[in-house]
Structures are given as structure tokens and as C-alpha cells.
């Protein structure tokens, strides 16, 4: 462990130098950075002993990649990304990989899955009523769930969790980091931005009319899609009407009025064209009736491509579900590989999602690869899993791209991102590696040295043991 610590210290020094380089004039930047590569020992001591605030070594790294995909439209070649205390502090292209940098083929921003489903099943959705805007899924989440780590290992560093699709209006979803302190509150990026709900088959499933005496809380409406739509309309109508007719007030009505006032975005899960149309028509109806203007996100909108004009008109952004393995997906929705390409050409803000991503072949990086097969460029596919979902969630100020000042949520690749032959070799969340990162050149040399020394020692001792055996 001891020699490793000195390497980490060196990394910090490098970080400090690159930082210093960044604030000096641009032409001096490269030269100074390259000059710093051998790292004079005197400076090493001075920096580590004299530093007023010691950076957290666990959250400070120098990464080097042949390609740094920033998600902002550029690919920097042979660039170093410096992470200090969990934030990106410098990005410097055109460098030879420093000996103490974690060197990989490519670095991208951590993925944002705006439709992840790492909830606690039915314990995360209150089913005693269909309209539950006042609930919040955040309190139901288990920060110790092993799925968080699995999700983070697959490159997803920020996730949005909505309650499972059992309520018409299920309450607030939450955008949070997939790793970090064992506390949902500490990981939360946005907790009260989205009121979530469902249009489709699922909120009515399990409900049935009462024949005779009701025997269950599920003897109720809605039992059909039509009923679901009616519940939506009634909830917003009552919430609006309650301002004049107090007897119409119900739990959570205030929150729906806030949605109408544009304070929260409405996050609607709607798989099929029929449901997407319903969502958009409801939004337009509320506007026409003077209730207010709803800001809409369509989640799991597999068939969003079928109504391009309507989609464009609504101004809604779209989160696509994972591609179905074969045939049709949930609610018999049809989502060809060309869907992301069609939405991109339409100019709609859209993101890809892997939902619970149980199968390795269904995780977000693979979805991006499939989207590329459907016609997206690598850049577009990358944006669809990083900056676009961050924008949809309103957290692009902290995550979604590789920019100085943003959170050090990074994915390290051993090849071109999303290529079938590439793998994710490291993930950082707020600068903390989800698993151990690849060795730096210095570490590799050290390990090689240690191995050789051990072998030499064994070779030296070997004759002795054989003679002893005799």
C-alpha cells in the first residue's frame, strides 16, 4: 500500500500543475504541462507538505485517453482529464500520457438514465388510491440495494426513478447519483422536479368492478384505458376547480395546480401511440381550458416516432424505453432501431433508457449501440445517454458532459464508445471509482518490478530448497 500512496501524491501534483497551466495563457499550456511530466521531486515534496487543503486522494485522479468524448460536440485527442475532489478541474488535449495517469482508449461522461427502475417494487408505489401526487418515491428507495452498484458499473452515474407503473398519478420521482453516501438525500440531484404518472394499461391492471359487496381496495376505477384517461382529466379538473369550489379539494391537488403553473414537469409513462396522443391531447386540453400550461416529458414513449407532427407541436421531450429483444414491447408497442434517428432528425430532445437493465445486453451502453445501428452517429448516441437526459431532468449544470467544474462522473473505455468490441473498464461517480481503475503506467512498472524481484528471490531460494529436500 505504501508505494501506492506516493503515486497518488504525484497525481495530485500533476493535477495542481495542470490547474495552474489552465489559468495561464493558452500557448503556455501545452509546454508547461509536458514539461511537468517528469515531476521534479523537490516540487513533489513542496506540494504535498505545503498544500493548505489536502485533496481527497480517493476522489482525485489524472485520466488520459486517446479520445475524450465531451458530449458537447467535440472529441479531444490524447487528452488528460484532471479530477480533484470529485470535480473535473482541467481538460487538456494533445498530451502524452503521463506515467501516473490512468490511461485508457476513451473517456465519456457518466450516463444518465432518466427511466431507470431501481425502486423497491410495489413498496415504492402507494396503491390505496390512483391519484397520489403528494407521494414521493425517494423515501421508498434503498440506498443499500446492490442494483445501484450494478447500474453504476454499467456506466450509469445518474438515474431518475419514478414509482412503478401502478398509479395513474404516482407522485414525485427523484434524480440521484447511483453511488455515494448510503443516503438517498445525500445522492439526490433533483427531488421535487417531476410529478410522474402513467397513461396506458398498467394503472388499471388489478382493478375490477365490485360485483355485489366490494371485497378489496382494488374494486374501483379505472379498469380500462378509457378509465385511466378519465382519472387524469378528473384529477386536473378537480384540482383546478377546487380554487373556486373547495369541496372538490383532495389530497395532492395543490401539487397538480403547481404542475399547471409550470412549477413541476409532468413525467408521463406512455408506451403506445394511443397513450402518447392522450398525453398530448390532455396537455392541450388543459391549456385550452385555461388551467395552465403543462411541461411534458414522455417516458417509455416507444411509439413517439409514429406521430412526429403532434410530438413536435407538443414540445414534449422523450425518453425511449430499451429496444425490445424481439417483436413488440410493453403494451404491444413497436419501436424499431431507427426510432432514435427519426427523433433526432425531428429535432426532439430525447434520451435512451435501459429501465432495470437486468440483462447485460439490455444495459444503457448497449442501447446506445443499437441506436447507432439504427442510424445515430456516435456523437448523437452519446448525447442521448448523457447530456440529453441531463437536460430533460434539468441537472445539466452538474452532470451530462465533460466540462470543467462539472461532477467527475466519467466512464472509461478500452475502445471506441458503444462499439460491440469495446468494454467499460472503469467508472467514476463524483470522482470515486465504482471498481478499481486500470493501473497507471507507473503502477504497472512497479508491479512488474515487484514481480521480477519476487521471481528472482524465488529463483535464488529454489536451489536451497531442493538441496534441503535431498
Amino acid at each position, binding site marked *: 500500500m505504501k508505494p501506492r500512496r506516493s503515486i497518488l501524491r504525484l497525481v495530485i501534483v500533476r493535477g495542481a500543475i495542470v490547474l495552474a497551466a489552465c489559468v495561464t495563457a493558452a500557448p503556455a499550456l501545452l509546454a508547461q504541462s509536458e514539461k511537468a511530466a517528469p515531476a521534479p521531486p523537490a516540487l513533489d515534496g513542496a506540494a504535498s507538505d505545503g498544500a493548505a487543503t489536502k485533496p481527497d486522494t480517493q476522489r482525485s485522479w489524472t485520466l488520459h485517453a486517446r479520445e475524450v468524448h465531451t458530449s458537447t460536440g467535440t472529441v479531444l485527442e490524447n487528452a488528460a482529464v484532471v479530477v480533484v475532489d470529485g470535480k473535473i478541474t482541467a481538460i487538456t488535449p494533445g498530451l502524452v500520457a503521463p506515467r501516473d495517469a490512468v490511461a485508457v482508449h476513451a473517456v465519456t461522461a457518466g450516463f444518465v438514465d432518466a427511466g431507470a427502475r431501481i425502486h423497491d417494487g410495489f413498496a415504492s*408505489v402507494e*396503491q390505496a388510491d390512483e391519484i*397520489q401526487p403528494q407521494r*414521493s418515491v425517494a423515501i421508498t428507495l434503498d*440506498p443499500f440495494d446492490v442494483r445501484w452498484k450494478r447500474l453504476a458499473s454499467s456506466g450509469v452515474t445518474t438515474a431518475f426513478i419514478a414509482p412503478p407503473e401502478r398509479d395513474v398519478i404516482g407522485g414525485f420521482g427523484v434524480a440521484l447519483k447511483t453511488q455515494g453516501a*448510503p443516503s438517498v438525500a445525500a445522492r439526490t440531484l433533483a427531488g421535487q422536479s417531476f410529478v410522474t404518472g402513467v397513461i396506458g394499461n398498467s394503472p388499471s391492471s388489478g382493478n375490477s368492478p365490485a360485483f355485489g359487496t366490494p371485497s378489496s*381496495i382494488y374494486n374501483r376505477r379505472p379498469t380500462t384505458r378509457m378509465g385511466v384517461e378519465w382519472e387524469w382529466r378528473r384529477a386536473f379538473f378537480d384540482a383546478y376547480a377546487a380554487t373556486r369550489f373547495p369541496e372538490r379539494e383532495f389530497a395532492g391537488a395543490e401539487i397538480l395546480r403547481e404542475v399547471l403553473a409550470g412549477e413541476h414537469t409532468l413525467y408521463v409513462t406512455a408506451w403506445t401511440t394511443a397513450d402518447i396522443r392522450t398525453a398530448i391531447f390532455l396537455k392541450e386540453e388543459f391549456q385550452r381550458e385555461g388551467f395552465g400550461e403543462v411541461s411534458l416529458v414522455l417516458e417509455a414513449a416507444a411509439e413517439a416516432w409514429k406521430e412526429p407532427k403532434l410530438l413536435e407541436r407538443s414540445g414534449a421531450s422523450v425518453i425511449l424505453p430499451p429496444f425490445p429483444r424481439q417483436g413488440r414491447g410493453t403494451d404491444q408497442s413497436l419501436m424499431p432501431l431507427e426510432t432514435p434517428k427519426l427523433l433526432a432528425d425531428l429535432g426532439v430532445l430525447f434520451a435512451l433508457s435501459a429501465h432495470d437493465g437486468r440483462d447485460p445486453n439490455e444495459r444503457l451502453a448497449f442501447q446506445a449501440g443499437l441506436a447507432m445501428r439504427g442510424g445515430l452517429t456516435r456523437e448523437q448516441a452519446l448525447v442521448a445517454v448523457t447530456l440529453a437526459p441531463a437536460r430533460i431532468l434539468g441537472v445539466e449544470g452538474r452532470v451530462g458532459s465533460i466540462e470543467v467544474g462539472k461532477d467527475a462522473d466519467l466512464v472509461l473505455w478500452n475502445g471506441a464508445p458503444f462499439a460491440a468490441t469495446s468494454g467499460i473498464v472503469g467508472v467514476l461517480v463524483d470522482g470515486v471509482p465504482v471498481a478499481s481503475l486500470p493501473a497507471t503506467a507507473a503502477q504497472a512498472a512497479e508491479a512488474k518490478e515487484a514481480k521480477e524481484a519476487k521471481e528472482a528471490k524465488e529463483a535464488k531460494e529454489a536451489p536451497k530448497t531442493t538441496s534441503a529436500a535431498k
Partner: protein
Amino acid sequence: MINSLLLLSLAAWTGIPGPAGVTGAELLSTSGAGLPSSSGAETRATAVGLRVGRLHVGDGTVLENAVVVVQGTKVLSVSAADGGPLPKDTVIIELEGELSPGLVALRDYATMRGENVDATRNVMPTADLAWAFDPDHRDTQALIAAGITTAILAAPGTELVGGLAPAVDPGSGAIVKRGALLCVGAGARALAFNRFPTSTSGQYDELERLFTTSTGAAGQVFQRAKQRTLPVLLDVTDRADVLRAAAFAKRHGLAGALIGAMKWGDVIEAVKDAGLSVVIGPIWVGGEGEEAARQAVRVARAGIRIGFAVDTPENHPALLRASAARCVRAGLEPAAALRALTSDAAAIAGVAGQTGKIAPGLEADLVLWSGPPTELTSRVLRVWSDGQIVHDAATAGSQQ
């Protein structure tokens, strides 16, 4: 129970010799009730001094060659053998073994036969669970035989607010304290598929509402909980539950304990921060018992007060002490384990002023063990409840 008491009294009266090592005089410690010389035994009982080689006070201190003077139902004094004059007419009885306070089982279902829940309502803050206690039920015998002289009869964690749990004495059949703890289902067990709340969010929204807006008798109960005069017993399942419950308790300034979780590793700080105690559920032999014991030790080492629950009649009452013994094997100091079984448990249940220690003024709830109380090789030899012998291994059939 009554029969065996009568037998014991009869033995004392007639001078029938007891089993090896027990003289007829020892049986006099059934207090004044059995003494022919006492008149008005209920009020002016003869003081009985129990001299024992080793006495565990229950708060961690151990006295060698100590004398406990019991008068009536209470302990009059505790002293080392040469610790000064004893009250006049004190009958001294020599005991072989080690004496400890009676054990306290936190959360128990003994004698209630399922009458501690109401299937139609899961919020019953004013329900007094003492009504479900049946002092004549044979469960009491099993508890006493395991050295348990105080049990907290609680509602299961399936109820959102299960009611007020009393502390009862299975030996005397007395209710030590009504409404000792308020039972709250703060974990996954309180969720159901077919009634509100079906979800954690609904559960906590409802608890929040109950604790802040309840009025009337229910409101008073929650108010007392928030004023810390009524401790709560928060049922939890996993670590996420613990975090939620601890945050809830902290927000409302509740005092009390968490019960039901098995893993505590990453949430100890949150529990400590909320100032809550932890009740360790029965720890089974084998399976995850090993890990559960290690987790319990971590909690105790962090400075959190712990107690034990055994959940009779679902489990055998002997599992209470066995759970503590497993914790000792996992590294808990025996003194701390005994504290968790006695004085700390009494403190969690808010009955430290009545029982849990061998101290002047407290109930004379005593257990004579054949060896150290937290060692499984030690047996219960005799149990006193409120100064009366309620169990004697020599005469109890199952123990012979």
C-alpha cells in the same frame, strides 16, 4: 403457578427437606406469606437475606459474597457479606450459584394468543395491549423457567401504530407498567397488499400525518411520544427502514428503540444520531445467526444501548439468553450482555424504576443461576418474582 407456590409454601410450613443443597429454611424466602410467625404478612413481611457467592447487580457491577435483603416484594438492601448490620429478625438463607436480576424480554407475544392485533384497523394508538395479557396462561410458566420476570407485550410490526405495550411480570401476573412503549410499524412488515398503506411512501406520509395532526386521545398519545415521556418501539426490517425510522424519530424528537433489523453495519451512525436504542431479535443457531450476533456486537460497541427480544410463543423463551450468549461468543463482554438482558432492557422499556437491577427499592425479581448467567452451561435454579419464589428447578417437572 399457583399450585407450585402452594407446594413451596407447604414445604416451608411442614419443613419437608428440599433437594440437595436446599434446606427447608431457604424456602422461607417465599416471603412472609409462607411464614407462620408473621401476622399481617401483606404489610409487614419479615426481611429475608439471601447470601450468595456472586451477585450480578445488572448494571455491570458484580459483588462477591453479597447479601440481598428482600422485604415483601422489594429489595431492601444489597451489600457485601460484611457490609454492615442487617435488619433485625432477618432470616439469612445461603444460596449456591450466582444471582442476577430477572431477565427482561423486549417485545413478546406470550399469553396474548393473537389478540394483540385488530384485523380491521392498523392504526390504534390508544389500544392498551395489557388487555390481551392473560396471567393464567401457561406461557408464563415457560417465561419464568427461562428466568424472564418482565416481558413487554407488544403488537407485531405488521401494524402501522399497534398500540401501547405494557410491561408485565409473568411470575406475579402483575402489570408492571401500562403503556410502557408505543408500537410503531416503521418497516416493510407494516405494508400490505390489500389496505393502506401499500407502500413505504404512503406509510411515512401517514406516520407523519398521525404524529403531527392527530387530535383527542390519539393526539395525546403521539404528543407524549414527542415529549419523550412515551418511548416508541419502531419495527424495521432492512437498513433502508432503519435510516427512514431513525430520521423520522429524530425529526419528531422521539425516544425509544428500533427492533427487527438484522444488518446494522452502515446505519449505526444514523441510529446513534437519533439517540435510539436497538432491540436485537432472537438470534438463531446456524444460518444467519452468526452474522446477526456480530452485527449486534457492533451496535453495542458503538455505544448504543441494546436489549433482546425473543418473541415467545413463536420461539422458546430460553432463546432470549441464548441470543445474548451468542453475542458473547461473537465478542460482546459478558457484563454488557447481562446488562442488555436486564437493566438496559428495563431502561428501554421505561421500567428501570421498578426492575432490571438488584437494587434497594426495586422489585425483588431475581434469578439464581448455577453459573455465570450469560453462559449457556448455566441453568436456572430458582426464580423470584416480586419477592416470591415462582420457579424452582428442583420441583419443576420439566427441569428435572
